[in-house]
């Protein structure tokens, strides 16, 4: 374990330039603002203690996103335990979403709803490639998987997303006619 922590200047720069990317990845992964903020904190505390030497900001960003992806997967596992051990918390998860107009717009977006039905491993690849703009090779490095696996997951993710969007648009049309502006996602099969 290290005794030396990163400097204040280093951490401020990292937070100013990369906190958004880390938060968005955690959000795409966990789909809950409060959980995503927990992960962001954990990731940047890891950075604070880390001794990795970064070549540049892109290198640091890739490292941060890798750690974020790992933390999110761990979070899912611990979340499952929380769920089975203290199911009363489930309702409070929904209530814990931070009131943020930007987030509200995002959460109401049909693509956000359609992404909910993608397995997380596909969703994360779609996010990194189609939102963050990473190449398949860079994503392979970030996630620690083969580029060919990234391409497969991207293909499958986009295909499922297209199908989900089609299903949701149909559902949205029906529910809008019946109940007004209700864009709740429908189960995808």
């Amino acid at each position, binding site marked *: 374990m290290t005794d030396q*922590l990163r400097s204040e200047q280093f951490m401020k720069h990292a937070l100013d330039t990369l906190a958004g990317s880390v938060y968005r990845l955690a959000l*795409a992964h966990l789909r809950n603002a409060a959980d995503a903020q*927990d992960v962001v904190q954990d990731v940047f505390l890891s950075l604070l203690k880390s*001794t990795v030497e970064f070549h540049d900001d892109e290198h640091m960003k890739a490292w941060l996103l890798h750690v974020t992806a790992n933390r999110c997967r761990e979070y899912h596992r*611990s979340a499952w335990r929380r769920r089975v051990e203290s*199911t009363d918390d*489930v*309702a409070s998860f929904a209530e814990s979403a931070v009131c943020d107009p930007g987030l509200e717009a995002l959460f109401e977006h049909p693509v956000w709803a359609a992404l909910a039905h993608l*397995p997380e491993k596909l969703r994360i690849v779609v996010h990194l490639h189609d939102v963050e703009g990473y190449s398949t090779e860079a994503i392979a490095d970030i996630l*620690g998987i083969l580029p060919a696996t990234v391409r497969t997951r991207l293909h499958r993710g986009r295909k499922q997303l297209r199908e989900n969007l089609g299903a949701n648009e149909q559902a949205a049309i029906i529910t809008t006619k019946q109940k007004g502006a209700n864009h709740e996602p429908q189960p995808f099969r």
Partner: protein
Amino acid sequence: MNRNLFDDYRKHMNEVELPDNARESLNRAILEERSACSQSSAAHSTRKRLPTRPAWRIAAAACIGAIVFGCLFFTPAVDRMLGSDEKSFALTAYAAGIATENAGNVKLALGNFASWGGWYSFDELAWENASPYENDFIHDTDMKKGYICSIYFDLACEGSGIASLTYELEGEGVYFNFDPARDWSTPPEDFTRYRFTVGPDDLKNADKGFIYIVANVPVEGDLVESAAVLDEHLERMDEALAENPDENPNEGFTQDEMDAYNEAMNQLGVLVQTKAAEMVGESVLTITATFYDGTTESHRYRIAPVEDIEERYQKLMDDSRLEDRTSLFTIEQLS
């Protein structure tokens, strides 16, 4: 896919930033970490707080210093194991253990070198695309439905003249898992589920990540009844959440149903972790030290639960503040 729709989503997503209150909270956490670090001495560093790591890891890290450097000098086994040779090695957990029987017996208590890393469910049918084992945390042992249970053991070794250490695990349903923790650029060399190689001090360094021993515990025997109660409960919860995501999904259950569920959960927790410990106990861990002169030395170990682990583990579950875990496992050097 509608391109404009996705472009619109990307625009929304890219406008999302970490909220100010979360940034402030993070800044406070960083300040606390700096404060804790500045107050710590060199000896203190082994118990530096890891704010969001599982408690078992914190406990393990905290104990390593005390036990390695304490027991190392007081346990007769250490001298015997390490001696004063220029080339020697032993699993620290074994060398620093406490003899469970008469002197001379090589079966030692594992003490605080073991801790539970959690467990979670697995059901092959739940994976729609029939490729469940692409998940980095799951390794295919032909288990269709069951529970994946991680146990952390301190597998570090002590010795001299060691250039590298190779760990191999043989046993049904058990395998290694690597958590890179912080520095993902330094995974163990040639890591596979059953074999990996590290530098002599790598497993003492939390920055290098953690190695778990994982057991895939199938739903069979004693587990069937509790697992069925759990499955039914979770299925009803899912249905309730699908119907009304904003409602507490437990509201539809009677108190008797909740009591039955909680009891099944407790039983399952004990059964899964006991069974996982037994599976680990049936496996053999081989550690090969390669010395700087190119020669090698291997030792085979069995890490097994104590006979009454189920009762002892239940006691631990009943009072999680209990810190005495010294009697949950024993370690034996087979050769």
